[in-house]
């Protein structure tokens, strides 16, 4: 079977629905609504129309030769999801799930967010469709991504700062799930990544796979060939699966996911789930997981809020187990240097999340040499990260930290 044809609930030994019984009816309802929507041309037409006239699809590709001089001379091409309305790939998925919410007939949506990009996208869709919206965000993340908190509130969403556990993305998911268990009859959970219980990994992938479908043709048109390698950052993994999926059955195209290496995978402070974790169950699915001997989740660390998550989507675990995709870690510092390099050499300020993929591309280019073409998913723009970058590089009056 073609790898692209794989559907949930299981990707090999990964995936499933490890959830309280209270959520099963809602997951069944969502699965059924999604199955019907997939068969309904009107749903696809409406989503495509929103993509064209609201998000700004197709997103362009940009070749970045001045950046590529630092990548062993390989050609580097960016897929510009940073140019989407709301500033990242997250809007692709949110519009699909918001349309499904309308079909199911629920009036309230909830979402978790790490960097705030999925929260902003969800608040945006809620404003567009007139839905009530509550966003759960770890307290640590509300502080380091304060700009996005303001954006969500301006859009009319309630933002709940989650103070339990590590006060980051994993805890925001816990609280969003608790809200859903309590309010399931009136509320739809717009999940932001390709993790979680079925049908989320499959459904979110399907809403994101347009990234790779567009980019595959765009690279063919530009270069006359498929890329040598595709690179993306991986937290939960939605932008990565989005750009990988169209290439899964192109055996000659190498796929690389770059996880957050934090202060180094030899230290305890990282979020390199596939690189350093082992299979387990978290947030409704069996997948790779950072955990201790007893199965307690280990708190992750990354300078990038969007990658600061100790789990990963089950389809990535499956692709890793098959050897179809390769997952590596990129440190906080390598990502920040790549962020500055792209900014200075090309005038494009990437999100810190996406800068992990850029750092990975620099490494890959050196390995693959000047004949290689590397397609990088530039999943988001860096506006939200200016405070972090200013402190990191000493851009405020007062000097470098």
């Amino acid at each position, binding site marked *: 079977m073609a790898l692209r044809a794989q559907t949930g609930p299981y990707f090999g030994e990964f995936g*499933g*629905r*490890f*959830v*309280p*019984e*209270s959520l*099963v*009816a*809602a997951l069944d309802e969502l699965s059924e609504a999604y199955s019907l929507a997939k068969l309904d041309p009107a749903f696809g037409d409406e989503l495509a129309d929103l993509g064209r006239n609201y998000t700004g699809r197709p997103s362009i590709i940009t070749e970045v030769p001045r950046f590529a001089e630092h990548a062993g001379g390989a050609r580097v091409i960016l897929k510009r999801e940073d140019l989407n309305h709301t500033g990242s790939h997250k809007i692709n998925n949110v519009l699909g799930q918001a349309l499904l919410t309308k079909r199911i007939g629920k009036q309230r949506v909830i979402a978790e967010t790490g960097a705030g990009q999925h929260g902003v996208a969800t608040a945006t869709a809620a404003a567009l469709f007139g839905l009530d919206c509550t966003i759960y965000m770890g307290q640590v993340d509300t502080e380091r991504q304060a700009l996005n908190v303001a954006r969500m509130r301006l859009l009319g969403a309630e933002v709940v700062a989650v103070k*339990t*556990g590590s006060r980051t993305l*994993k*805890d925001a998911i*816990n609280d969003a*799930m*608790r809200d859903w*268990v*309590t*309010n*399931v*009859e009136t509320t739809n959970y717009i999940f932001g990544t390709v993790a979680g219980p079925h049908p989320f990994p499959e459904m979110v992938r399907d809403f994101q796979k347009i990234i790779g479908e567009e980019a595959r043709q765009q690279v063919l048109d530009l270069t006359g060939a498929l890329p040598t390698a595709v690179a993306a950052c991986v937290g939960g993994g939605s932008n990565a699966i989005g750009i990988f999926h169209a290439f899964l059955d192109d055996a000659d195209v190498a796929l690389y996911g770059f996880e957050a290496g934090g202060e180094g995978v030899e230290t305890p402070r990282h979020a390199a789930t596939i690189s350093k974790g082992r299979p*387990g*169950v*978290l*947030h*409704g699915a069996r997948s790779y*997981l950072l*955990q201790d*001997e*007893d*199965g*307690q*989740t280990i708190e992750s660390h990354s300078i990038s809020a969007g990658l600061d998550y100790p789990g990963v989507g089950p389809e990535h675990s499956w692709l890793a187990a098959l050897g179809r995709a390769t997952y590596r870690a990129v440190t906080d510092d390598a990502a920040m240097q790549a962020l500055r390099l792209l900014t200075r050499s090309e005038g494009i300020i990437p999100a810190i999340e996406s800068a992990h993929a850029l750092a990975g591309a620099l490494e890959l280019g050196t390995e693959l040499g000047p004949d290689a073409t590397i397609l990088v998913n530039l999943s988001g723009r860096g506006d939200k990260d200016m405070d972090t970058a200013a402190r990191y590089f000493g851009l405020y009056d007062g000097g470098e930290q």
Partner: protein
Amino acid sequence: MRNVGEVIARRNEESAGALIGYLPVGFPTLDASVDAAVALVENGVDVLELGLPYSDPVMDGTVIQAATQEALANGFRLAHGFEAVRRVTERVDAPVLLMTYWNPVVQYGVDRFADDLAAAGGAGLITPDLIPDEAADWIAASERTGLDRVFLAAPTSTDARLRQTIDASRGFVYAVSTMGITGARTDVDRAARTLVGRLRGAGATASCVGVGISTAAQVAEVLEYAEGAIVGSALVKALADGGVDAAGALAAELARGTARQ
């Protein structure tokens, strides 16, 4: 043999039904959690449900989250769960179930977990984030060891899923009284009465209602239609606020709700 099903059946013959009490292992300390569990039984709790603290407890409200996070911060390890079962069952006769999220069992090894629980004198597991659809390994391990398996039923569960849950469960079926997470509520949802009726209609012999029960009056109300009432957050709060004696005193008060009306 400490058999959960037999204890619940006996309590329904001699009184209005069974009182099931929850406390987390290791809160506020391992020793105190053992003492508190013993105090519950000495004050009228019929079946104990000992919770294993977990880093991501999505079914738990703020009271139990705070207690289990404190237990983890104090160094809780899975081995303490078996130790607590052993120490409690040495002191009292009530059957002891462990309530655990699924990943710790997976990491320990499902068969090894079942063997060690049975060796410690435990009666079985309540699994809040494991549905029968995903439970093949646990069903096989519990068949082999004779441990009970308590799955959850919700007001939104379809009739087909209720039948599946009843077939997969042994000991009792845990009926979630309201759509929500754990935490004491002023009104136990009327949805519980409907759910228990549907479970009985589908063939369940023992349904116990949990989530939201905190007073003797609520215990009595639940036992009008269910075989057991499960109290968690209220007992944890009593233990947190007033120590082992307070938890015992609340258990004694709740046990009055089991008297035949």
